[in-house]
Each structure stands twice: as C-alpha cells, then as structure tokens.
C-alpha cells in the first residue's frame, strides 16, 4: 500500500465534505482539560538513524538481562531455550509485516498456521477448542472470568491467592469495568485450601497449575468445589508443565488459559507475550477473540477461514463476549513452530530437565543455608525462606552475576524473607552449584 500524504488543500476539501471547519472540531467531544496542550510535551529534537541507534543501545545496556546473568527469575516468564529455527521463519515478510492477514483468498498460509496453533494448544491442555490467541496470560484469565460471568449470569469470581498476583490485578481491572466482584480463596502451605468460602454466587473458581509458588494444585478438588456451586472451573496452566502433569482437561476444567512465552518466545523485558485460551466445546460461541476454522472449497480442497465471527464485537458490540479485536499472531506462530520443532517427546524432555534441575537446586540451595517455605510437590519453581530480607540477598547475588529470583515481600504480607526461584532446562549443574556457593557466602 503506498503512502498517501494529504496536502493542506486535501484536508480542507475533506473537512468541507464532512461539514466541519477544522481537524480540531473532530475532537470536540474530548473535554479541553483532558487534552494535551500543544508544546507541553517535553520531546527532544529528532535524531539521525545512527544517533538514535546509539541512544537505544545505551539505554538497553542499563538493563540487567538474561544474557549477562545466570537467570533464576521466573514468576510467569521463563528463560527457556528458543530453537534457532524460529527467528528466521517468523521474520519472513509474509508473516512479520502482514497486517490483519485474515482474508481467506489472500492468506491461506497464515490462517493455516493459526489453525495449527489452535489445534496444538487444545491438545496441550486436553481441551476441545482454542482461540487464535490473546494479548497475554493475564488478559486471557480476565477474559475467561468475563466469559464465566456471562455464561452463568453471576457477578462474582473466586480466585486462589496462589494465582499470579499481577494476573489477579488484571482480573480486578477488567471486572471493575463490568462491576463484577473478585473474591480470594486462601492458601495453606503454598496450595489452595480455603474452598469453603466459595458460594453459589460464583461465576467461576480460578486456580493456577502449577501455581505462582510452583506447587501442583489438586484440580480434582477445585472441580468438585466449582461443580457443587454451579460455577465454571478456570485453570491458569503452564503449557510446558503439561508434558508431565495430567492437563486440566482431564479434570474437567471448563476453561484453560496460560502464557505462551515459554514456547519459543523471548522474555523481551516483559513483551510481546501471547495469551493461550482453550475451552470445552459448550462455550465455543462465547470464546473471546478470533477463531480460524477449516473447511473445503468448491473443488473439495482444504481451506482455512475465520469462523463463528458473530461472537465478535465488530458484528454485535453489545452482545459480544469481549471487546478484543486482535490476537498475537506472530507470537502464536513462534509457539506453533516451537511445538512443531520439539514435538511431544521434545516438550517432555524440556519439562523433565526442568524438574531435574529444580530438584537439584532445592537440594543444594537448602544445603547452602536457605529453607524451603512450603512442603508440597513443585514443578519448576519453589519458594525459599532466606531468614533475612530477600531483596538485600537478591542485590548481593546480582553483584555476583546471578539473578536469584523474585523477592515475594511486595506481593505477599509476611513474606519479606522469601524468594521465588525458577529453574528451566537451560541451567547447568555447574551454574546451580555456583548459585549455591554464592548464596552460602551471602547467608553465612
């Protein structure tokens, strides 16, 4: 598409056609006090390409990143191996620069890629259907809560305290807008136990699997509680863990959401991410976002096209499940290539290495003087009680070239001495040993 500039004459003519005097008139609805005053933004002069590049590199150097430190910080984003095949494929112009490539006559390739993505995500979680992706795991969860409230006609969701704190904040933001209520289900020893609080006003019960502390929740119990109260069961699940744990679909989860970043997407300082969203077929007509379906053309050839479009807000704004009008197609493509490249066995070996590294780290870090905060089974992440302020310990270890994890004080009261430590398949025994040795120095 060419770039078409507007001359002042063009603008005048267009304004005259629609019957207003100036571009300013088009913004009349916005109160004056909310508008940015011309000249009030402190924006410096333009830079040449080279100057801009140097400036950005200088800014980037100020970040601590996983290429410079040995990385044990997880809490939703994980330092996993990204197969080399992904970057060149997602960098192809047909994928990288295409904008809304959903016209079936033009975009069979991208549509098929999304269809394969949906199929894989549904299979990973053992669910009937998945959408073309959401912004990220947190918004996927918020959308699942909205869908559960719409489906049940109820105005309250019950979310475990062991669901990622940031995810819970996003749920609160979304449900504030719809005037729905968010209640918390308490935990004991790092797992959800306060199910007695759930009542028959519940649109859904939400648990995370493995949960924020790394522990493996009892989904059968969560299902029982949801069913007893006529609520849906929504599970936030790590897709990599599904290679070893029975997926939520096997426990009768109604909706499963998650973050797709561990499947071949860089941590990227927190983005871009990709939200996974899968559900039982009963809710297909309430699924938020796009869905690509498979059909055949007049000659009987396989063909892919967007389907069930009437759920979407561009068809019926007031009736739509969600106001999302997009998806994370490029990141979903990275997930698809990752899963294709690894296959079932590959994903299983990633998960197995993760568990082995986690078990070993728990052993040597506790030998170094830290205690395990909780006693339950974990997958790839666990909470250490350091016996002293975790933020101070973190900063000393960063000086030693190790990012040890997330201090939990800011997120949970009474956990100032606790650190959430994550392991992935890329950590080596030598690195974990060094982590233990450095931790021992700090703690003694």
């Amino acid at each position, binding site marked *: 598409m060419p770039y078409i500039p507007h001359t002042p004459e063009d603008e005048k003519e267009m304004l005259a056609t629609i019957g207003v005097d100036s571009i300013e008139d088009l913004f009349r609805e916005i109160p004056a006090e909310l508008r940015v005053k011309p000249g009030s933004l402190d924006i410096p002069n333009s830079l040449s390409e080279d100057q801009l590049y140097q400036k950005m590199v200088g800014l980037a150097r100020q970040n601590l990143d996983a290429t410079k430190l040995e990385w044990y910080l997880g809490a939703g984003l994980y330092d996993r191996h990204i197969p080399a095949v992904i970057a060149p494929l997602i960098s192809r112009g047909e994928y990288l620069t295409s904008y809304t490539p959903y016209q079936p006559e033009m975009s069979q390739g991208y549509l098929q890629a999304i269809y394969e993505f949906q199929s894989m995500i549904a299979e990973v979680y053992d669910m009937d259907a998945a959408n073309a992706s959401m912004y990220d795991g947190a918004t996927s969860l918020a959308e699942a809560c909205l869908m559960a409230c719409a489906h049940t006609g109820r105005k309250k969701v019950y979310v475990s305290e062991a669901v990622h704190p940031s995810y819970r904040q996003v749920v609160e933001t979304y449900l504030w807008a719809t005037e729905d209520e968010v209640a918390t289900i308490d935990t004991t020893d790092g797992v959800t136990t306060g199910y007695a609080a759930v009542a028959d006003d519940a649109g859904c019960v939400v648990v995370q699997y493995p949960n924020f502390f790394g522990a493996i929740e009892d989904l059968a119990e969560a299902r029982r509680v949801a069913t007893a109260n006529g609520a849906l069961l929504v599970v936030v699940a790590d897709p990599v863990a599904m290679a070893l744990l029975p997926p939520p679909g096997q426990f009768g989860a109604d909706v499963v959401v998650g973050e797709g970043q561990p499947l071949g997407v860089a941590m990227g300082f927190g983005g871009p991410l990709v939200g996974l969203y899968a559900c039982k077929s009963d809710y297909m*007509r309430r699924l938020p976002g796009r869905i690509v379906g498979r059909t055949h053309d007049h000659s009987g050839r396989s063909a892919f096209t967007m389907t069930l479009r009437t759920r979407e807000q561009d068809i019926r704004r007031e*009736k739509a499940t969600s106001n999302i009008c997009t998806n994370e197609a490029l990141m979903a493509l990275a997930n698809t290539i990752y899963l294709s490249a690894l296959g079932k066995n590959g994903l299983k070996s990633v998960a197995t290495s993760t568990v082995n590294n986690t078990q070993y780290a728990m052993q040597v870090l506790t030998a170094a003087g830290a205690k395990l905060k909780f006693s339950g089974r974990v997958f790839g992440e666990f909470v250490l009680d350091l016996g002293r302020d975790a933020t101070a310990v973190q900063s000393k270890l960063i000086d030693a070239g190790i990012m040890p994890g997330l201090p939990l004080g800011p997120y949970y009261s009474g956990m100032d001495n606790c650190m959430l430590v994550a392991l992935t398949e890329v950590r080596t025994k030598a690195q974990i040993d060094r982590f233990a040795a450095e931790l021992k120095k700090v703690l003694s």
Partner: protein
Amino acid sequence: MSSVPADLKYTKSHEWVRVEGDVATIGITDHAQSELGDVVFVELPSAGRSLSAGDTFGSVESVKTVSDVYAPIGGEVTEANETLGAQSELVNTDPYGQGWLIKVKVSDASQLDALMDAAAYGGVIA
C-alpha cells in the same frame, strides 16, 4: 415472494404467532429467514422462563449475522424446539412448521390484538 400464512399473527420484528387454546407457538417469518441466510445456530430459553411482550427470548445466528428474537406476547415458556440444536436449517426450510422456536402459555390473550394480521405484515415486507 415470501410466504405469509393467513392464520398467523405477526410482529414488526418478523416473528409469527400461532395460538391453539392457551398455547402460543412462536417462530420467525419466511421473510426473516431469507434475509438472514443460512441459519447455523439458534439460542433459546429454558422451559419455565417467564416472558413479557417485547422481551428478547433468544437469538438466531446465520452465516453473516445474529438477530435477537422478541416475544410477541407475554407468558411462560413451556417448550423450546430442541430439534434445532442439531438441525438449525429447519428455520430456513420450514419456518412456519418444524422450524418453530418456542411455545408459550399465554398470560393475556388480549395482547394478540396489538399484533398484525397477514395482510398488514404483507404490507410491511412488500
């Protein structure tokens, strides 16, 4: 030319009503189904739901749009057409017969007087 049976009552929003005793059968008209195109899904209320005239009681989804359907008269839903779950196309092929949507126990028969007869509805869609 859409079919407009003479023995039914009609609404401006293209629903029809057939009254037998105190039970009213409700569906969408031949004109409505042809405007919608191929119907792929019908959402209907459960039996026992109480409706007032003008209430939305469900929706009819076609390949290109979704339309809400409105109760022509008030009453309690006694039955929804379960067959449409597997055969939504009956709304297209037999809108006044097997493609009916719900049956309602009429609460106030005088509400029927506010509806159009076939001649008036025929004029609306002409």
